[in-house]
């Protein structure tokens, strides 16, 4: 059975067992001497494990954190949900810890919106969604009952910005310039030096 078939098999099996309860233990690490030249996509190295329902909630949260605007697309439009799925399905300790935090957090969003608005997270209108996010968006000001959710949100925001700003569209949004050979290195342009008072 090749890797692709393994993934299919894993996904089929997941229809029976809730995937959030399947640990990523089966996933194999890439080892200490991986091929650095090939292009990797989420799912190439270990099976992705988010259920459709989890993916939907993850997508909404990603795009709430980084929505599309005039400059760049939304987080989910540049593959951040796939990245988060890869991340929380990975066989490494940091990612396993994040898996626990993220899956519980995604469940919390649903139960919180049910509790407050009697609707699932995916169905609440923008102002209600914002009301929940405002309560959990900054750990230092979160009320005690929201502290754990705030920790989830902080980590999820880091995963989202990490994914977004390492994408080509994210790099363009920040107006990053580089990764291209130059005939010489000239240092900062005059306008830059002027702006910081060095010219």
């Amino acid at each position, binding site marked *: 059975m090749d890797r692709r078939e393994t993934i299919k098999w894993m996904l089929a099996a997941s229809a029976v067992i809730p995937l959030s309860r399947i640990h990523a233990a089966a996933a194999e*690490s*890439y080892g*200490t*001497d*991986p091929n*650095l*030249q090939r*292009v*990797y996509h989420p799912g*190439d190295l270990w099976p992705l494990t988010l259920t459709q329902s989890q993916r939907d909630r993850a997508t909404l949260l990603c795009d*709430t*954190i*980084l*929505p599309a*605007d005039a*400059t760049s697309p939304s987080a989910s439009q540049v*593959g951040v949900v796939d990245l988060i799925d*890869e991340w929380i399905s*990975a066989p*490494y300790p940091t*990612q396993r810890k994040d898996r626990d935090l993220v899956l519980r957090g995604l469940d919390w969003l649903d139960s919180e919106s049910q509790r407050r608005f009697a609707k699932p997270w995916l169905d609440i209108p923008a102002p209600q969604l914002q009301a929940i*996010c405002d309560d959990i*968006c*900054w*750990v230092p*000001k979160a009320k005690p009952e929201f502290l754990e959710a705030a920790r989830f949100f*902080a980590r999820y*925001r*880091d995963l989202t*910005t*990490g*994914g977004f*700003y*390492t*994408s*080509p569209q*994210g*790099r363009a*949004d*920040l*107006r*990053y*310039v*580089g*990764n*291209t*050979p*130059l*005939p010489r*290195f*000239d*240092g*900062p*342009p005059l*306008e*830059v*030096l002027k*702006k*910081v008072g*060095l010219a």
Partner: protein
Amino acid sequence: MPFISAQAAAHKDYDVIVVGSGAAGGQIAYTLTMDGVRVLMLEAGRKYDASEAAMFQTPDVAPLRGMDTPDKNFGFYDATVDGGWQVPGEPYIVGKGEGETDFKWWRARMLGGRTNHWGRISLRNGPYDFKPRTRDGLGIDWPIAYEDLAPYYDKVEMLVGIYGSNDGLENTPDSPAGCLLPPPKPIVSELLVQKHTARLGFPTVAGHRAVLTQALDWRRLPAKLHPGNPTAQKIIAADMQKRVPCFWATPCGNGCSIRANYQSTTVHLPPALATGKLDIVTDAMVAEITLSKNGRASGVRFVDRHSGKRVEVRARAVVLAASAFESVRILFNSHPSGHAAGLANSSGRLGRYLMDTVGSSLGGQVPLLENLPPHNEEGASGGHLYVPWWGYQAQAAGKLDFPRGYHIEFGGGRRMPDFDTLEGLEWLTNGSYGTKLKEDARRYYGSFVHFSGRGEMIPNEKSYCEIDPTVKDRWGIPVLRFHWQWSEHETRQAAHMQQTFAAIIESMGGRVRNQPQADGAKAISAGGSIIHEIGGAIMGDDPQTSVVNQWCQTWEINNLFVADGAPFPSNADKNPTLTIMANAWRVGDHIVDRMKRREL
């Protein structure tokens, strides 16, 4: 004669066996083969070629966006393969006795060793650094002085290609004209740091790094490197022309296939192989040194990692250059009759005086650097400027509560965003999300500065290693057990670093991200974590108190040498690699002389 099998090597006789292929092994193999000595190099890891380097790869095509994992500790694209803080199947033990603190041991199992990913910072030790005990009564003097090593610093700088400037600063030696390459222009955050450190009363000058900012002068340099040796001159002139200067892109730590920076695999080994005098066996994990009946080293025994079999190879002399503590381990594990405490250890000093560098870091954000016009800040991929230690006068006047100094490495700029570039941004944004977060990201990207201190540790009796009585690695070779303790000399220095970094950041109008740590024991990085391990087989004038003499020749076995950082009796704040190379060249010249005189 290039890469050969373990079995092939076992059937040949060599002049010298060199164990290790990094800065020390590469340099000594270069020096010896250029003078016609037949060398067998043994490397524990696999063959590696910098054409494997992932140079332009972006995080979006890497697993986990290229972030570090237990498999690749410095990120997916870091040049190190089969290495890290742990090597599978090759454990080490860290003592947990009272007062002992953590120790981490970075190893690379690959041709070129740790030179493939290092920071390329290449600083000369100054005159004070060789005579620390004479100056302040602490630590151990070297049996050699700056003047002994200076000609070799010159040569290494000319061979490797080091950018930097001569600033005439105390204990920060200038290089003779024609040694250094011009430094790259500083980026804006560096210029801002320079302005504000000047206000605070200390200098910021050009960094010294092993990166070609222009092509090496292949017409002038070969005669300086190898006077009277036309064959060597021809080989190195040809090789210098194959190295391409930096094209101002891609991280040095990923490796450099155009050979613009120094890796043993791109600078030392190609010309050494071109002499036809060098054989290399990779996947050769050296277990012990073998002795002949007359008590001289006859060769080494290694484990061929392909077959798991032990193989014996022979030579007239053996040079250990396996990285300081790995060389110590080999000596400990070599105990033919009469050497129960390990080879060359009648002084009892083997494994003693382990040192690393004092490290501490602090970062901040500078409003002046927000929203700058887009421009390319990648440069030579490391510091274009640095702050050499400035406190000699203050120390002499008794104004500081610690001896010895540190230099400051710092960085910032609009570099390619990594997965964690904007991590934890809420310390500035109060938790923004949505469109506001995108605006915040644009505002703050490129406005961060980060400072790291690199300071001198004074050797002490409580930082040492020994062989663990029970644990063996996957090859059946007994492993090291480390014991580590900092003294107040180091922890006070680390606390001082924190204050200094905060002062610079605040002077620039910036905000420190975390409160500067006043408790030095908390501010200091774990032992070993700066990856500047030194000591364990120190050199000296007295066989009672040192393991090797000034030529890094063991006192007890005159054809056995240790040419890496293990013989260093002190670990100046200057990063050790350049000194390792200069010292290895000196040792290599000495071996050539003695072979010519038929003394080996």
